[in-house]
Structures are given as C-alpha cells and as structure tokens.
C-alpha cells in the first residue's frame, strides 16, 4: 500500500480511517479548511467558507460514527456549487443580483447530503447563474486553474472542479446544463459525472435552463464520484421532473470484480463518433483520446464507428433552448421579494430595469436578450420551435447509436483550458466549445468525463463517455476499470503536492 497525504486519499480510504477511528471528522475537516485558507487565495474556487458550521457538522458526524450509524459519506468533507440553496448560508449564484441572498431552505441535494452526514465546507465559485464555460463571468472574479496560473478552470462549475483538483476538498457537487460538470472536470484533470435528466432533484437548485439542468458530482476518480452520486439521487415530489426510481449504490456496483480480470471490459461495445475527431479538434486532444480508446480496447472493449449526423447543429439548438428557458427563469429576479434592488428609481418598471441591469452581468444580459428574442412574436417558430425539432432529431441519433453500442466515447471538449480573457470578447467562440457536451443535455442522457492525458503545456485532457438513459453504473464501471489500469487520475497539480499538514494514510 502506498502512503498518500490524507488530503489526497480516496473517499474509500477516508471512510475506513474514520470508521477505524484513525482520524476524526473534525481533524479531517480542519485539514481541508486549512488547505482552503492556505491555497484558495491563488485559485478563488470558493465564494463562501463557513468554518464554524463545518466543524459543528463534523462534530455531529463524529458522534454518529461513534454510535456505529455512519453512512458512506458521514464525516467526509465536501463543497457545494453556489447554485444550490443552503439555509442560513449565502447562495449567490456568483451574481451581484444574489450577493445578499440567504436562502430560507435547503436544496434537495443539500438536504440529502446533510442527512448522509457529509460535512459541507462551503460554496464554490461558478459562472454567473451557471452561464458560461470559463468561470470568468463570476461577480466574485474568475476561478484559476490549479494546473497553470493565468488559466481558466472551465465552467460553469469551475470552482468545484478546481477545488477538487487542488485537493481543497475531496468531492464536490456541480450542475451541468450543457457541459458544466464535464468540461471543468476535463480542464482540471478530475472526474465528473452528470446523470440522466431527472435522477437528481432540481428543487432548490437555482434554475438556468429547466429542461437541461441536472446536478452532478466531482471527484478525483470515478469511484469517488460514485460515492457522491449515490447520495445525491432519489425521488423528490417537490420537483415535477424528478424520476421515481430506486437509488443505486454505485460504489458497490463498480467495486464488484470482473469475471476476467485481465479483460474487465470484455463484451462492452464502445461507439466512436468519427465526425467528432475531424475538423476543429486540437491534435494533442485527438492523440490523447485515441490513446485512451486503445486502452479501452486493451481492457477488452470493442470499438465501433457510429454516426450522429444531426449533432453538428447541437450548439445553435442548445443555445436557443437554453437562452429561452433562462430568460423566462430569470424574470423572477425583479428586486421585489429578494436579491438586489436599485437604490433609486422613478417607478415600478424603472425599478425592475435598474435592479436587473445593475444585478446581472454582461453575459447573463446577453442571454436574457437572446432568449427574449427567440420567444418573441414572429420569431418563435423559426428559432424556438426549430430548436425543439432539432432536439428530437439529435435525440433520435443517440437512440439509433445505442442500438449498436453500449457507450459512446469522444473528447469532452475540442480545446484544453485557455488563458484568462482569451475569449471574453467573443461569446460565440466560447459557445462552440460545447459541441461534444451540449447534445447530451438536449437528449437528457448521462455523461462522464475522466482525465486521459496532458498537452505539451501541461494542461489536462478529458475523455467523455456517454451512456443510454440510466446507465450511470455502466459509465462509472467503465471509467473505474480504465482508472484501475492507468494513472492519469492520480496526477496532481503542483498546488496539490504542497502538504500543509504532512500526515499520510495507507491508501
């Protein structure tokens, strides 16, 4: 067994150490809180850290462990993307609009993880209202990629991804509307999963685009994601789109051994959309992803070329739907019941306009304006309805593909993390980067990103696995077996090698 620093231990090792009283949750929580204090000023991954509350949760977790009543995540520190409402703690959505907003209730995901006994260290930074692919639109400033100063962490859940990559927290929650879990996971060199739409309740998750938004999980490995995802899922009557299905214990499922240890993925057919590897894909990413596909083949999987002909129009269809739904969802921010209200105004309409223009940043306003346009009289059929028809065609492409394969593998993003500010003046260029992730949200399918290499500049590259509806266990199992045979998921940025407290643990 290789000793690793405690802050770098997998969740399974933390669980064992807590259960065997080698460490208390209070000690563990302090280790991560100290790391946040030492290193977050460089990364800006957190908007709010609540030390007292975290330590109080850790104390009750220790009491629960002492009573032998621990659940898999009892006493394990985590962080929530600041889009999940948390009672009594600021929930900002990285917007000036909600910079004073303390939610009167917990999101369903937050309640479930509290019940599981997980210890919340705080709330992570994101693109304002989860609108962006770089975490540069945050009112609280950009998140910095732990792999390289001056580089974006990806988005919109970039704070959660950077915090896990830098080992400021073992696991973190996120949301994914068009790639917001998978793309920052790829950019920060960690694993992230967005399950089937409807598996995680959206109650208390501040909505971006309601028919696309879905919670997700970040961890250093598929196994760590499995622990978190199982505790986030479950039927909730308060979300009309929540699906009434039994909760699966993903960590137990992926932990079961394969019949043929040398070829653990024997019998698995992976579809490869060849079009995704042609124009617009960076050569270093192509090479890394092809290398990962060869590894999957070596593990027993068979590869098969597939065709997703309508996916080339996924980005425009996705943005029309996402912006239409966002413009509608964001009408609730009007300065009346909560959030920012302008100091001076002439009348009610002036109060709405001033409060919203002061409260929302430029990208949010662009999306509201575009969404308003595509929903307005005379344009609705040409844009919104056409996008919904394309959504049907794209979903049909996936249905046909899954008749021929069990999973689809492709790059997570056509680029690696870029320099801060590089795309700030060109929103469309940034939108085009969602080409491989947004079709998955249009169809409501589960998707996972895991690290599969680095470019010459030392920035991580991600591989995306896409599954059919409710195939989360299969996605996590495939990624887990890849990770058992490779070490990309064990690479750490320099900041995560900086031991603040030099304790180690047997992995």
């Amino acid at each position, binding site marked *: 067994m290789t000793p690793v620093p405690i802050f770098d231990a997998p969740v399974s090792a933390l669980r064992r150490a807590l259960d065997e009283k080698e460490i208390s949750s209070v000690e563990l929580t302090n280790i991560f809180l100290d790391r946040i204090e030492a290193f977050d000023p460089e990364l800006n991954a957190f908007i709010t850290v609540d030390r007292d509350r975290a330590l109080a949760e850790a104390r009750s977790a220790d009491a629960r462990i002492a009573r032998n009543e621990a659940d898999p995540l009892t006493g394990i520190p985590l962080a929530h993307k600041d889009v999940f409402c948390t009672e009594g703690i600021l929930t900002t959505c990285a917007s000036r609009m909600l910079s004073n907003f303390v939610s009167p209730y917990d999101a369903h995901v937050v309640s479930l993880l509290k019940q599981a006994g997980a210890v919340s260290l705080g709330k992570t930074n994101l693109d304002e209202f989860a609108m962006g692919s770089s975490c540069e639109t945050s009112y609280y400033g950009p998140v910095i990629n732990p792999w390289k100063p001056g580089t974006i962490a990806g988005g919109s859940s970039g704070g959660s991804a950077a915090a896990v990559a830098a080992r400021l927290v073992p696991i973190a929650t996120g949301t994914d509307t068009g790639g917001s879990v998978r793309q920052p996971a790829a950019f920060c060199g960690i694993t992230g999963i967005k399950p089937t739409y409807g598996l995680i309740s959206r109650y208390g998750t501040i909505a971006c685009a309601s028919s696309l938004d879905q919670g997700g999980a970040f961890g250093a490995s598929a196994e760590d994601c499995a622990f978190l995802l199982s505790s986030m899922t479950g039927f909730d009557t308060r979300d009309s789109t929540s699906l009434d299905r039994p909760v699966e214990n993903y960590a137990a499922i992926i932990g079961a051994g394969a019949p043929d240890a040398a070829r653990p993925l024997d019998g698995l057919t992976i579809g490869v959309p060849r079009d995704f590897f042609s124009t617009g894909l960076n050569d270093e990413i192509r090479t890394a992803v092809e290398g990962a596909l060869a590894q999957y083949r070596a593990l027993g999987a068979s590869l098969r070329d597939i065709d997703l002909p*309508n996916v080339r129009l996924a980005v425009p269809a996705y943005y029309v739907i996402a912006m239409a739904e966002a413009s509608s969802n964001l009408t609730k921010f009007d300065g009346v019941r909560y959030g920012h209200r302008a100091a001076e105004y002439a009348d009610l309409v002036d*109060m709405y306009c001033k409060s919203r223009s002061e409260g*929302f940043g430029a990208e949010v306003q662009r999306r509201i304006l575009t969404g308003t346009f595509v929903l307005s009289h005379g344009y609705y059929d040409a844009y919104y309805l056409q996008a919904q028809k394309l959504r049907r065609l794209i979903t049909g492409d996936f249905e046909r593909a899954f008749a021929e394969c069990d999973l689809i593998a492709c790059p997570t993003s056509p680029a690696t993390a870029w320099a801060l500010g590089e795309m700030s003046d060109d929103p469309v260029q940034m939108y085009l980067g969602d080409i491989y992730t947004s079709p998955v949200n249009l169809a*409501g399918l589960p998707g996972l990103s895991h690290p599969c290499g680095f470019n010459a500049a030392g920035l991580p590259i991600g591989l995306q696995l896409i599954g059919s509806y409710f195939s989360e266990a299969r996605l996590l199992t495939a990624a887990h077996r890849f990770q058992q045979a490779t070490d990309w998921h064990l690479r750490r940025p320099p900041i995560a090698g900086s031991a603040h407290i030099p304790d180690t643990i047997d992995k």
Partner: protein
Amino acid sequence: MPLSNEQLMRLARLARLSIPDDKVDITRKQLDSIFILIAQMQAVNTTGIEPMSHPQELAARLREDVVTETDCRTAFQAIAPHTEAGLYLVPKVIE
C-alpha cells in the same frame, strides 16, 4: 438579419433591462453574432418532426388535495428588500 438599435431597445424593454448608451453598439454586435450562429438551424428541413420540449415524456403527477406547506411568510420576507405589515412594498403603480 442585423439588429437595429430600435429592435435592441424594444427587446431590452420586453426583458426589463436598461442598456446604457455606451453599451448599445457592443451589445448589438454580440447579439448579431449569436443570431448568425442560431440561423444555422434553418439549414435543416424539419417538416413533420414533433418538437421535443423535454427529455423525459412525463405526465403531470397528481397528489391528494391537502395542505402540505406551512406558513413561511416571516422567513421569506426576512430577505425581501422592502416589506411592511406582511406585504412586499414596490413603487406606487396607481395614483
């Protein structure tokens, strides 16, 4: 179809946003580039395709017609910009 200043102002009014004078040109330019992107959708013939509004075909769930929520007005109004006697205060709408 490039957006005119008048169209932008109309959109802003519908969206309850005010765009300062020095931001009008850049906003118009950026929206135009988004419109070029989304106009690509017109290249596909979608005649006869049923629009898809949602990834899961779900029927609305029904529940017993009973009270399930408690009164949370005090908690909800504690975070409001301006309230009085349990009411949300806004500028006068009718003289």
